[in-house]
């Protein structure tokens, strides 16, 4: 941005006891969240966890059945205009008019706001220069996603909401989106995103809330969550290795099984590993696919929900 740069000043977002029900389904079941200004806040959870509904209630697209959403001093249910003017939104299915050109789409959305960023800056920033006159229908998945984020920024928002910003993108395109998201934070904006990719949450988010079945299971930085729920290390092997449930090994905390691996969770990797080696040697059990690793968010999620995100 040329000239005097005014960084956006975002406020604290408070979600207090918010519930939302669709028919028989309690999509969001009384959540409390405080999202501090600045930084990237992630809502992590499987499909159907209630992430999108939570996001859309904050954005003002859905009305909570119960509870309160505050942005700074404003109660957003009574000051929807505040949310619409100051928030930037990329929806999970950000569909635009298929036969409108990229630059026309940006102009159209810019015309709705009092305060806007220059179109050229957005086009450059999201590398849409070559596609500026292309119809939306002719954009690739990555280009569409970049346009969606560009449009989310058109009003120079204080808070940017990104719903599954990298869903369906190839690895290169995902990394481009990550860079763009970090750039948003570095400009002083608050970014709130949802994802069901663990690596994305770990690589991108400063703070995370893990959601499942409409509840927030825990909240913290990725490192805090790992420390809290899955300190130590994992010894993994193929599920075909006959590990009994009542296996006794030094420092072994518990055994986790899923379709891909059987994992021994331990606080002292060396002791458990030595014990496992002895056990296997005595019984002549081949430890197929043996490997060790430190815990990740994936393990945290498994611990919190009892199931894998891969399901």
């Amino acid at each position, binding site marked *: 941005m040329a000239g005097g740069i005014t960084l956006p000043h975002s406020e604290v977002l408070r979600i207090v006891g918010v519930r939302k029900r669709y028919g028989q389904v309690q999509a969001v079941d009384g959540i409390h969240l405080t999202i501090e200004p600045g930084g990237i806040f992630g809502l992590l959870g499987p499909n159907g966890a209630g992430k999108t509904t939570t996001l859309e209630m904050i954005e003002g697209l859905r009305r909570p059945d119960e509870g309160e959403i505050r942005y700074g001093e404003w109660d957003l249910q009574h000051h929807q205009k505040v949310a619409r003017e100051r928030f930037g939104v990329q*929806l999970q299915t950000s569909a635009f*008019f298929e036969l409108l050109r990229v630059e026309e789409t940006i102009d159209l959305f810019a015309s709705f706001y009092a305060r806007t960023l220059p179109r050229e800056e957005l086009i450059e920033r999201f590398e849409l220069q070559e596609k500026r006159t292309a119809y939306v229908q002719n954009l690739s998945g990555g280009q569409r996603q970049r346009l969606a984020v560009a449009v989310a920024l058109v009003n120079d928002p204080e808070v940017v909401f990104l719903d599954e910003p990298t869903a369906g993108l190839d690895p290169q395109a995902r990394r481009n989106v990550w860079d763009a998201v970090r750039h948003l934070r570095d400009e002083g904006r608050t970014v709130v995103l949802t994802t069901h990719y663990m690596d994305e949450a770990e690589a991108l988010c400063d703070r995370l809330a893990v959601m499942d079945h409409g509840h927030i299971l825990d909240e913290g930085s990725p490192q805090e969550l790992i420390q809290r729920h899955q300190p130590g290390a994992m010894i993994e092997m193929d599920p075909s290795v006959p590990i009994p449930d009542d296996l006794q090994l030094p420092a072994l905390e518990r055994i986790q099984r899923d379709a891909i691996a059987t994992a021994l969770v331990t606080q002292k990797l060396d002791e458990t590993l030595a014990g496992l080696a002895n056990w296997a040697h005595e019984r002549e059990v081949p430890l197929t696919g043996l490997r060790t690793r430190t815990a990740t968010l994936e393990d945290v999620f498994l611990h919190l929900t009892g199931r894998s995100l891969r399901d």
Partner: protein
Amino acid sequence: MKQLFMVTGALLRTLLRNRQALFWTFFFPVLLMVVFGFLGNSSFKLHLLVAGGGSPAEQRIVQAFKKIPYFQVQTKGRSAAVHLVKVGQADAVLVLPKDAAAPPWKASLIYNSSNLQTAQQTVSAVESAAAQINLAFTGRPAVLAVQAKAASGSRSSSFLDFLLPGILALMAMQNSLFGVAGSLTRWKEKGVLRRFLATPLRPLQFLGGVVLYQLVFGLLTSAVIVAIAMLALNANVYLPILPLLIVVVVGMAAFLSLGFVIAGISRTEEATLPIINVISFPMMFLSGVFFPVTTLPPFLRAIVHYLPLTYLVDGVRGLMSGQYAPWSPQVGGDILALAAWFLVLAVISTRTWRWE
């Protein structure tokens, strides 16, 4: 207002880029007009054959008949000519006596008698032509000379002239229903609407933009169809612009509200199209688009009379045929009835409308 116009402008732009949609918008109306325009072509001429074996008399008589505009005259051999008349390819054959040199000539007229009306027209036309020719040949002053003159500005009404207003009304209905119900359910499904709702653009501004776009599009396509009908297909209609505009806009408003009702009820675009067809097909065939409502059985007429398309067809046709004076009570009645439909449907649509 600026936001509303931006939405309208964007939609008009996307429409102009949608070649396929544009093509189908014009294809059926034009096809209908061309097909029915030819069918109902009423520039009526009697097809008269003269069988005189190439005699000088034949030539003089052919010359005389050719001066009369409603005859299409041809010479033919006698048996071939009679055959053509029998199979209905010509209306009559005038058979001259062989070797007719000097008048008077005694000719016989052999005509196709399958259609009583045509046969009578043919015979009396040839007889009166013969009387004229006699006068011209003999040069005797007539006791009563009648000179026929066309009333200036008189129009013949072809089937195309009847059909064109019906097609305009039909297009107003179809474009409004598909434009609103079709597009809105598609945008709902794809999340286009939600994205707009997350901006300061107010829902009514967005819907206003859609309505304005539909009105502009509807009026432009109507103008194009009228131009094609009048310039390329020789349609002969009155165009009292202001009353026509009012009738059409109020009619479109009624069908746009109906479109919003359907868009509110239906969840997916796939479900929308059959609903539109169920509603629009009966009206398309019963409301007088292709044939007058008066040809329907009375019990059906009683129902059809109150359908919105019936009023729209009646108003547009009344004005374009010249049957209704521009500000006549009949036109006012149609406008009021359409306005009532608009109000009722608009109220229903606010109840059924859902943003998702």
